Every structure is written in C-alpha cells, then in structure tokens.
C-alpha cells in the first residue's frame, strides 16, 4: 500500500497545478488510503482538502512546508492536535514577524514549535538537499534528528531524472548512518500529468517571464503527478521498504481537522454569574426600555418571546456570543458610531432588546426560527452594518484590542483567477504584447466570462484565428483551466473571527495588505465548515451618508432627526417612490427598481420591505416578480395554493417571497418544529437532490397528510417549496434594509441639500456616478455653488443663501488633489477666518482669504504644481471671478516656477509683464491670447477635473441641432404612443446585462431633462457592440414598448462631444 505523503496544492500559490480538492479526489481514485497536503507556509487549502478527502473516504493529512532562512523548505506534519497548534503558531510567528511576503523561519523557531510535529527532509527544494549541496548534510541532519527525535523521516523522490539519483544515494547513506527511516514520495505538484502545463504557466507568472523565454526554469518532464502504488513500486523497485513504510507513517498521524474545537471567547463574569444569567439580565433590562412605548399587544408578547429565545440560546451555549456582539454594538453606541444588525439576527427579540438590531420582530411578526433553532447546527450569523471608513475601522481595531492580535483576525477572501486576470496572466505567459493583451482583455467585459467555445468565438471576431494558431488554442485551453484557481488571500469584506484561546492555535494568522489588519488563512466557507463563529462588521457607505446627513440636518435645520425616529407614513416619500424618482436612495435606485416602482406603487413600509426583496435574480427567474406586479395592479386575482396558507402569504398577495414564509408554511401545514422547518429550507436549497432532501420532503407530505391536505395540494406545495427555497430572501434582512431605504428616501425628499452633501462626502457609493447625481439633484431644484478656494472646504457643505439651502462643492472632488493638501487649504484659511463662515457671505475680510496663487503657495507650501494646475482648471482659483480659469492657470505657471528660476527670471518678468503676484494685492492683467472657457468646453473641463459639472448638461449644448434632426429629449419619451419609433440622444450612464435577462442588455441615457431607458435585444447588441461599448454619448433610435422603456433599433455616436462619462457598466 502506498500513500502519497508530500503534495502541494494551488494554495501554495504559483507552485502547484491542481486544486486541493482535486488532489484528494485523485488520490482516492488511485486507491490510496491516505494523502498528505503540505502547502508552502499555509494551511489555506486544508479545510476544503480535508472535507473532500473525507467525502472520498480517505484519510486527509495536513501539513505545511516551512520556508527556512536560507530559502529551503522544511515539511512539517502534525501528529496530534498539539502538533497542529504548534504548526499554526509557527506559521503565524514567521508571517507576522516581517512584512507581507518576507517571511522565513529560523532554527530557533523550529525548535520552539517542534512538539507534536513530524518532519520530512523534503524534495529538491528541501532543507536537507540544500545542506547536502552546501556540504553540511550530516551536521544538519543531526540537528533535525535532535529536534524531531523519532519523528524524522528521510524523503526520497524519483521523477525519472538522472540528476536525482546522486542526491538520493547521499540521502540513503545519511539515513543509514543515522539509522533513520526513509520513505518514497513523488513530491506531487499536480494531480494529473496533464496539469503540468498549468504548473509551467504558474512558474512563468511567478518568474515574470513567458513560456518562450523561461528556458530551464520550467519542468524537465511531467512526472510530478500523483502516482499509484504500482508506479511508485516500479520507481523504487530497489527500495520496496521505502514504499511500504508510507502507510505506517500515515497511520502515525492521529490529528484530524475535526478535532479542532473552536471556542468563542467567554464573557468576563463576576463570581456567581453565568453568561446566560448576564445575557438574561441585560436583555430583560433593555427590553423594558426598548418596549416602553410599544402598544400593549406587542408588549404583552415580549416576555414569552424572550423566554423562548433564552431557552434555545442557553441550550446551544451561545450566551457568550450574544454578549460579545452586544459589546461591539455598545462600543458603537458609546462612540456615536451608527450601527445596525442585519440579516436573520433581526428575527431575534434578544438582539432587538440588546440594541444590536433595529427591527422589532414582534411588531413585524418575524420568525425567530429562521435565526436560531434547536436543530440549527451552524452558529447563528449576526452581521453588523457600520458606516464605511474610519468608524468601521475603529470598531475593527476595538475588537483587536479587546481580544488580542493573536486571538482575532479578519476572515480571508480567496482571490481567484477570473476573466480579466486570467486573460492577462495567461496571455503574458504566451508572450502576447501589450496591445494584444489589451485587445484580449477588452474581449472579456465585466459581464461575461468566457466559457467553452465562447472564447474562440470572441477571438475569431477580433481577427485571431484559433484554428490556425496553435498558440491561441493553447492560450484558450489554459485560460479555461486557470479560472477559479486561487491567486492570493485577500480580506473578507468584514468577517472577523475571535477565539477564547489563541486563535493562532487554530488557524495561522498573517498580515493583511492594510496596515494594522491581520487575516486568518481560511475564508468564510472554511470557517463555516469548521463551525467557527464569524462576526461580520460590514462597511455600508449608506450608513456613513445617513450619519453625516443626520449631523448636517441638526446643524442647518436644528432638528435631531435620528434614523429610528422617522415617521413611516410620509406622503412625500411614497409619492417619490411611486414615481420611481429614487436616484440616490438606498436599494431602490437601480434601473430595475425605477422601472418597477411605478407599477408596484409602494404605499406603506411593508411595501418597501417587499420592494427591497423582490428585485433579485430569484424572484425574477421564478416569475414571482411579474405575478406580484399583476396582483398589485389588480390584473390578476390573489389566490393561494391552499386556504391554510392564506395567513402566511397574505402580506405578499399570495406570492411567496421570504424564507420566513417557507418556514411558517412547514410549521403550520405540516406541523414541523422551527428547527425542522429551517432544515427543510436548507435541504431544499441544495442544487443536487439527495437522500436527506427526499426524507424531509416525505416528512412534509406526512405532516400535511395529518393536517388533512389532499395529495394534489401536497404535490403543489412540495414543488412550490423546492422552487421557492432557491430564491427566498430573509424577511428580516429585507426589513433592515428597508429601514435604511426609507430613511434615505425621507432625507432626500425633505433635506436634499444635507443628504446630497453627505452623499458626495462618502462618494463613491450607490448606483450612479457623481455627475448624474448632481444633475438629478439640480432637476429637483437643488443649487450647487462652485468650487472656490476661499469658500469651499475639503468636504461638500451646506450653505444658506437667500433662505435657500445650497451645496458648496468640496475640494475633495478636485482630481489629483491630495487629501492632506485639500484639508490643509481649508484649515489654513479657517485658522485665519475662524470667526467668519460661508453663511456670512460678504463679510469676509480682505486679508484672511487666499489673495493669490503665490499666497496659496506661501501658506500651503507642500502643494505641488499638478495640484495648483488642477485647482486652476477646476475653477477654484478664480478669486471672485477676477480671473477666468485659463488666466488662473497661466498665472499658476508663473508662480510654480522653481525658486532658482524665479530669481533668475525676476528681472525679466518685471520688465515684460504687468502681472504682480504678491501677498498684498492681486492685480491681474488679462492676456488677450487666452480665451475664456465657455459652454461645452467648460463643462468638459469640469467633468475632466472634478467628475461633476454644475453647468448645463453636455446635451443641452447640442439640443438645437438635435431638435433640428428630430431627436427627442428624454422627458419626451414619457408621452409616447405604443409602437412609436423615435430617436433620443444622451450620455450613456448605464449599460447592464442582468444574468436573469437572457442576454438582453439595458441601457439608460441621460440628458438635461432626465433619463431614457432602452432595452437592447441580443442580436442588436451583437450588431452594435462596438458602438455601444466605445461611445459615451449615443443617439439611439427605438420603438416605444411600454411606459419608460424603448426597444433599441439603431445606435449612432454623438459627434462633437468629447466629455468622458463614468457609466454603471455591466456590473
């Protein structure tokens, strides 16, 4: 029996040609009873390898090759849990000691962490090989033998290469000398022989070369694949004992990943307390406060709901987890950080009482079982939304500080080779030049990742002929094969893992790219598989916008209008929603939402909850969206599969939308417990039918039979359940988002200036680019004040002029201006004019603002010439319109001369120019050779330098010409008759091809009057692909189909406009 004890997977990054799962699968196919994965300085692939091997019924052995200080590798394999902890700590120690990518272990590190670890001498890049080459093999083997007493094995590898035999004979000699056991291995870098090609590609990527220039760094042959016992016996026919011992070594390994017992941190308790008692005490006290003003029917249910939840939390020993999340939530409140729990946690009264979530589950009849039940094997998931940026970072650092750097870390995110990165990397390997790479890369837009013959088709379209070109065929083949291979470990968007004991005893921790952040080597799926609790601290741009909006409203309107005090029955909000006038609003601003809102006409808060949940791929594919709209519009009768389902589905007009509804159905009509119902939801959600699903479906039928439901209805409900399980959305999650959606709508409708200022200060976020947001706000009557170095702050701000609230553009939008310089410009001015403000216009003293560009350079000396030029062109240096932008730029060219040249030229300048750039005065000569920027040129400069323009829309300058050519404006498309054919022109702000739309592309164009939406059928898109993708402004001829939508027939680029538009492109 042979067991391969030394394999590498793709998680060794650029050093293997196979995924860990494939390694495990192939080992099983070859009849091995155990296989070891020993990746380089990582166990990142261990979890998926472990579970795959178990699935195949073979023993997975986990280890890691440790990089030594001389660059060689020392393979270590844990024999027991203690050994694994040592290995994990060893990797953590070496990774955290130096900056990312510069890690290595010293002999001292190995000695300190050697307990419970078995050591192999490794292959050609192994520690002992290096020692033998350096002439100190005997000394180093003696050291290894001392450190790993009776746990050291000499490894022999044969790959049909002549030069290996020399070192193998030396290794054998040393093994005999030290009486050490030796074993045979193939040092597999890939599962199948075929994968050698991918391995060679990775070698090229690693060495920044291409396959033609790589020369001898490539493999000599394709023998580093997993081999069966027969092949290995043939290779080691002279040393059969080396093969036979592999099974014994595998048997020696007692450690299994299943043993890893992760424990959530204990909550600090005083004597006599338990976590359960503290949680109960806290929740009850806070529930009293939280429900103080609730109506009696709600208040009356609080105690019983809490008791029910306490019972399950106690049973599952989760009190510590709740208290920890509560602690984070409290930290946010104490530090005035807006936070809100999302996801299924909103179903919990305990979470609501503790202040973790904002939705009252009793009032909204939310089902606790969706969050937690007796049968629920996984830990519950509590996600907390935080304002993106500093606030979120403060919370993350709080967790690090509280639990320690070695007991907490961010979850990893495995970054894989996807469309563009795969094209680029494989293309480079095949020696394609930059131009070809760009062409190949552009072929692969955001919305499509080539599969199968698609790439060859695209290549042909672009003039490459794969049939004739072997290189392109190979490129195409390897492009397909590299997809989904891991590239590196990144950070998860917010998942943090904390542990009672040292987390690095469970999983290695390594530095993240961001300062002060560390990541664990497992991603969220690995954590879930090993039942490791993750707390998601998610950054949500809209939370930051709402936070800033609330502050601005308080400042400028004197109203303390916090998020959770907003009345949910505001007519203006529903009016805007019903019209689809929702640009800037959270979750309801997308093109699809805007198209759907005028049909669904939300009239109350729950309608918004539905709105948030229904524009999702699931309901669209499941045809639930259309059914709901028709019922909403009264075009279809509201029916139920069975009368008993009416109470459950009534809220969504008989259309099942929420996972909670599925659970309730199972509980009410089949008598399932909460846990069983949730199990049903999970089982039905699996793509592959299995025995478990069949069993649960049978239980459902049995339950329904008991309740007297006829078989035909049972069939209908089972089918319904299966279909529904795939697209159902958690109602609690929809509630949490609906709260934010409503708040954003409320603030926009009532406090647009404050909201828009906050929005721009947290840009980029949302669906639209900043230019579109400005134009939409302007159409709603909001006025923007231009950039002015003496009036603009770094941030956008609200100013009052003639009783109206306006938004002053902030310096943060000036492209190329560093944040610190922008803030310095503001602080330097404020330092002098602190007693004045923008709201006291006209009272600025002449000596406090910047008087000239020279004055600016004098007071902000770190500013560079690019920044001054950018400010000039953005219009920030017009000094009360005493100069125009080009004059400012011309003057800045003089002012930014290096000092030496200034002195050198001073005399000349004084003689030849009347310009005087002094601190005391700003007397400017207006050179006749500089023309003032006007009209479209000015708008284009604004867009180029700031991304926004408060002047006319570019299309407004062409309106006369467009009208003459019979091209309509966007607003005119709202009053068309069906089948009317018209042309509309505008800036393309959206190009979208939703996965649910069967290759149909949606395009939205914008002009000075608003938006026009087009649907582009696949044949038309193919016909006009280049015109659509390569032009920012288009004239589109289309046929009017229904309100707000034209079917595109023909596309023409708009000439004469060179503005760049940032479109929401195929995302």
């Amino acid at each position, binding site marked *: 029996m042979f067991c391969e004890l030394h394999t590498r997977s793709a998680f060794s990054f650029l050093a293997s040609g196979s995924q860990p799962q494939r390694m495990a699968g192939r080992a099983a196919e070859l009849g091995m009873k155990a296989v070891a994965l020993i990746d380089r300085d990582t166990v990142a692939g261990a979890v998926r390898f472990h579970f795959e091997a178990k699935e195949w019924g073979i023993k997975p052995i986990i280890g890691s090759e440790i990089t030594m200080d001389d660059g060689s590798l020392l393979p270590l394999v844990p024999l027991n849990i203690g050994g694994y902890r040592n290995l994990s700590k060893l990797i953590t120690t070496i990774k955290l000691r130096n900056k990312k990518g510069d890690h290595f272990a010293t002999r001292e590190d190995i000695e300190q962490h050697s307990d419970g670890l078995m050591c192999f001498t490794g292959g050609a890049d192994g520690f002992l090989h290096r020692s033998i080459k350096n002439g100190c093999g005997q000394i180093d083997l003696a050291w290894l033998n001392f450190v790993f007493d009776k746990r050291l094995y000499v490894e022999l590898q044969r790959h049909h290469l002549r030069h290996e035999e020399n070192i193998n004979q030396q290794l054998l000699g040393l093994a005999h000398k030290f009486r050490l056991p030796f074993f045979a291995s193939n040092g597999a870098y890939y599962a199948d022989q075929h994968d050698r*090609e991918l391995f060679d590609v990775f070698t090229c990527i690693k060495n920044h070369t291409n396959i033609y220039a790589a020369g001898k760094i490539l*493999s000599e*042959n394709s*023998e580093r694949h997993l081999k069966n016992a027969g092949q290995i016996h043939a290779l080691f026919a002279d040393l059969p004992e080396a093969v036979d011992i592999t099974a014994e070594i595998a048997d020696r390994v007692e450690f299994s990943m299943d043993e890893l017992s992760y424990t959530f941190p204990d909550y600090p308790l005083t004597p006599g307390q338990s976590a359960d008692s503290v949680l109960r005490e806290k929740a009850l006290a806070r529930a009293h406060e939280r429900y103080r003003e609730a109506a009696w029917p709600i208040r009356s249910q609080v105690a019983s709901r809490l008791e029910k939840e306490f019972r399950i939390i106690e049973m599952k020993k989760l009190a510590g987890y709740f208290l920890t999340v509560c602690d984070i939530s409290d930290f946010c409140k104490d530090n005035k950080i807006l936070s809100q729990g999302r996801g299924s946690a909103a179903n919990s009264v305990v979470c609501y009482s503790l202040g973790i979530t904002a939705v009252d589950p009793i009032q909204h009849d939310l089902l606790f079982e969706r969050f937690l039940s007796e049968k629920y094997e996984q830990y519950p998931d509590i996600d907390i939304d935080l304002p993106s940026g500093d606030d979120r970072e403060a919370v993350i650092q709080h967790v690090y500080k509280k639990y320690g750097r070695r007991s907490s870390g961010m979850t990893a995110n495995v970054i894989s080779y996807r469309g563009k990165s795969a094209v680029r990397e494989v293309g480079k390997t095949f020696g394609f030049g930059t131009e070809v790479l760009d062409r190949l890369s552009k072929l692969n837009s955001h919305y499509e990742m080539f599969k199968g013959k698609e790439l060859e088709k695209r290549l042909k379209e672009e003039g490459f002929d794969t049939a004739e070109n072997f*290189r392109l065929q190979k490129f195409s083949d390897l492009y397909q094969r590299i997809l989904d291979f891991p590239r590196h470990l990144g950070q998860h968007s917010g998942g943090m893992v904390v542990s009672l004991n040292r987390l690095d005893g469970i999983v290695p921790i390594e530095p993240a790219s961001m300062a002060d952040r560390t990541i664990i080597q497992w991603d969220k799926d690995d954590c879930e598989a090993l039942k490791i609790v993750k707390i998601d601290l998610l950054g949500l741009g809209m939370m930051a916008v709402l936070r800033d909006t609330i502050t601005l409203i308080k400042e400028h309107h004197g109203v303390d209008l916090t998020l959770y005090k907003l009345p949910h029955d505001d007519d203006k909000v529903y009016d805007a929603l019903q019209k689809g006038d929702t640009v800037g609003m959270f979750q309801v601003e997308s093109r699809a939402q805007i198209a759907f809102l005028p049909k669904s006409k939300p009239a109350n808060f729950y309608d918004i909850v539905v709105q948030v949940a229904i524009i999702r791929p699931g309901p669209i594919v499941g045809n639930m969206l259309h059914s709901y709209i028709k019922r909403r519009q009264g075009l279809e009768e509201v029916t139920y599969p069975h009368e008993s389902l009416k109470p459950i589905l009534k809220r969504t007009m008989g259309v099942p939308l929420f996972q909670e509804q599925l659970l309730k159905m199972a509980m009410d009509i089949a008598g399932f417990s909460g846990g069983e119902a949730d199990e049903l939801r999970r089982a039905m959600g699996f793509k592959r039918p299995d025995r478990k699903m069949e069993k649960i479906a049978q239980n459902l039928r049995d339950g329904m039979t008991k309740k007297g439901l006829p078989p035909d209805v049972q069939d209908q409900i089972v089918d319904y359940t299966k279909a529904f399980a795939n697209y159902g959305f958690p109602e609690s999650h929809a509630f949490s988002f609906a709260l934010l959606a409503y708040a954003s709508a409320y603030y926009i409708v009532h406090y647009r200036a404050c909201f828009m200022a906050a929005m721009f200060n947290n840009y980029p976020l949302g669906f639209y680019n900043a230019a579109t947001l400005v134009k939409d706000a302007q159409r709603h009557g909001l006025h923007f004040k231009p950039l002015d170095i003496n009036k603009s702050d770094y941030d956008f701000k609200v100013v009052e002029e003639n009783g109206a609230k306006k938004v002053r553009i902030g310096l943060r939008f000036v492209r190329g201006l560093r944040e610190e310089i922008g803030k310095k410009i503001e602080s330097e001015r404020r330092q002098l004019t602190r007693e004045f403000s923008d709201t006291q216009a006209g009272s600025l003293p002449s000596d406090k603002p910047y008087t000239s560009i020279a004055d600016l350079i004098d007071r902000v000396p770190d500013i560079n010439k690019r920044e001054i030029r950018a400010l000039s062109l953005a219009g920030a240096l017009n000094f009360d319109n005493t100069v125009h932008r080009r004059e400012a730029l011309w003057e800045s060219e003089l002012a930014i001369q290096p000092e030496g040249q200034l002195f*050198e030229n001073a005399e000349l*300048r004084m003689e030849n120019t009347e310009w005087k750039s002094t601190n005391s005065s700003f007397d400017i000569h207006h050179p006749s*050779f500089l023309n003032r920027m006007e009209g479209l040129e000015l708008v284009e400069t604004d867009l180029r330098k700031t991304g926004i323009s408060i002047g006319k829309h570019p299309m407004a300058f062409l309106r006369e010409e467009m009208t003459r050519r019979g091209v309509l404006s966007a607003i005119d498309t709202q009053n068309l008759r069906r089948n009317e054919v018209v042309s509309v022109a505008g800036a393309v702000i959206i190009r979208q091809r939703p996965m649910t739309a069967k290759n149909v592309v949606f395009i939205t164009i914008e002009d000075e009057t608003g938006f026009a939406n087009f649907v582009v059928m696949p044949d038309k898109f193919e016909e006009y692909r280049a015109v659509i993708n390569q032009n920012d402004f288009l004239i589109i001829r289309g046929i009017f189909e229904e309100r707000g939508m034209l079917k595109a027939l023909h596309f023409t680029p708009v000439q004469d406009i060179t503005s760049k538009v940032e479109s929401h492109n195929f995302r």
Partner: protein
Amino acid sequence: MSKLFACIISPRTADHKGILVDIASRFAHSIEMLEDGVLFDVSGLERLIGRPEKVAQKIVAEVRRHKIPGSVGVATTVDSATLLARQESETEQAMHLADKFEQLPLRDLGLTQDTLNVFEDLGLHRVEDLLAIPRSELISRYGREFQNVIDTIEQKGTSLMTPNIKEDRVAWSFDLDQSVENFEQLIFVLNHGLERLLAEVNAYGFSCEYLDLDFKLKNKTEKAYEIRTSFPTLDRAFWLKLINLRVALDPPEADIISMNVVAHFTKSRPDQRGLYAVTRPEPESLLLTVNKLKKLVGRDNLGVPVLLNQRVAEPFALDADALPLGDEKGEAIGRKPIIAFSHFRPPIRAEVLIRDRQLVFVRTRDLSGHILNVSGVWKSNSRWWDQPWKTTEWDIEVENYGIYRLCKMRDEWFLVGEYD
C-alpha cells in the same frame, strides 16, 4: 542668398531608404538620413526651379512617382522643414505638400507632455497660438531653454544639417548572353568582376568582410547568397574559393542568366603581418577548411555547439556561422569531475533484447554485447506549447565496450551517445 531645406518624412522609410536617398540626391548633394525620412539642402534651387513652393512640388512629384507614402516640407531652416514634413506623416496616404507652418500642432515641437497638457488646457493648440504670446511671458514660465522652441516657431532655428549619406558599398553585375547551367563555368567571369570590385573597395580605402551574391535564374526566380567572413580581406582568390564552396553547397535550382555582386565596406584589418613568424593558422585557411568540411558533411552538421537555455531533447544546437570565440583560459580550477559525454549524430540504430522486462543485450553495426548494468528509465519532455517532444532513455553498460545512452523512439532503439 537664404538657405532652403527640404525634408521627406515617410512611415515606410525603413523599406524605401535607398529610393529616398536617390530622390534626395537628384536635388541635393548634402543629405542627412533621418530615422523617419530624409533631409537635404536645396539652397540655390530657386534659380533653377523657382519659388520654394515650386521646389516642393517638384520633390512631391518625384516621390509620388515612386508611390511612397508620407509628406514633404520645404522651409528656410532645418527644424521648420522637418516639422512641416512630420505633420500627417503617419498616414499611408499619397504625398501632399505641407506649407502651413503656423497651423502646425504643438505636439511636434519636442515639448514635454506635461507642458503640452498645460498648453492644451490653456487653449493653445497650434504654432500660431504660441506665436501670439510675448516671448518674455513664455520664458518667464518655462525658462531660458524655451528659447529654442521660440526660435523654432519663429522659424529661426539654428539646428544644422549633418550630412550622413556616404557610399558604403559597391556593386558589379554581369548579364549573360546565354544561360549557364553550371556555376563553375562562370568562375572566370566572376574572377574578373571580383578583381574590379575589390579594387574599387580598396580605392575607397576600405576592406570587405561581407559580399552579397545574387543570381537571376532562367525560371524567373533569384538565388541569393550572403557570404561573410569574420575578418576583412581583399584577397580575391580567397573570396572566389569561398563563393565556389558556398554555391557548391547550395547550388541554384535553374540556369543562371545574370549575376550581381555587392561588396560591403568595412575597415581594414589592423594586424600586421610578415614581421614575425605566424604562430597560428591563418584565418583564411581556417575559414576555407571549415567551408570545405561544410561541403562534405552538410551545412547543418558542422558548426560551433551552443548550449541552449531551453528544455529540448538535445541540450545544444550547432551554429553553422559561428566561429569559436571568447577568451581562452588555461587556469586549472578545482571543479567536481564532470562525466564527458559524446553525442552520436546521427544516432546509431540498435537492436535490444529484453528478458523479464530487463534490458539484456544490445547490438549495433559497430558493437554488440551483454548489458551489464542499467540505470533509468530517464524521461524528459517539454515544449508542449509549440513543438512537443519527449525522450525515454536508459544508461547501459555494455560488456567489453563502455557506457552508452540508449533511447527508444517510436518502438525503435538507438544509441544516442557514449559516456567517456
């Protein structure tokens, strides 16, 4: 009389260098070859042809006659003529006359991209825009060195033309009255031609290490030979022998109807001969010997072995044109012993007897014997991306003979080499 310069810029200068020089030489004696065209001094032509516009039109007509794409500029300074010609020279369109200097874009003035961007933002796009700005304003912003730009746009550039077109080769050709089947029949004629040619080279004060020999053949094709030596020589007999050997190695496929020989100039050999006794073979003799060997064994089977940094079946290739070069080192270095290995080219076909999956006996045309020891099998393969290859080899010790490398290719056995 004021100076006048003309410039032809063509995107296909590399392909039409000779024609462009020919055109220039019809108008001027002083010619400078540029990377993207040709510049020449046409001062004085006004008296022959007329106004500068007329001169330009003449040049344009001449260039058009040769169907070369590009543009022509004529101006009173070198810079202006070059700038004029460079506009729109990227297109493959027919010739056109560029005579609007003030309309020229600023991008060709050699400004930094940074300054160009600023000018673009200032709305300054053409030479005329810059001309409208007082020069002191420009100098105060962009320094004294901007004076050169100002001079250029004011057409006061002081750049000088550096004529660089000189003879670098001479040619001799001979059209035969009747086609000749055998090259050796032409030796006498060629001998005469070489004598004239090499004398002409000598007259220029140069020597020659590179000849182009072209035959026009009866089947309307051409046969070209490039004959190089690693040293310059005017030894006619030597060149003739070399040509003879080379043509014999790769004779023309049809009867010869004409021949053309071009001798390229090179500096004369600096080494002195005759003062001391020759301590090494004369290079001429070595080269002739090498070429004689090539004639005997074939061009592909003689040359300098060059180690390849590639995963290929044979780790070296033969460079037929290279001669052993490099520094000789006589110092003994204490290196590990390396087993020498001789490659058999071509490999020697063998018969191998296998018993119980063991190699036991081998027979070739030169040896036969029991296989005493075997190591392997050794496998190599690579170049899966273009020319896949693989080898399967054993090292065998043959009784009474030695140690050989045995290779199996498509079910046939070969001895590919021997260990020393």
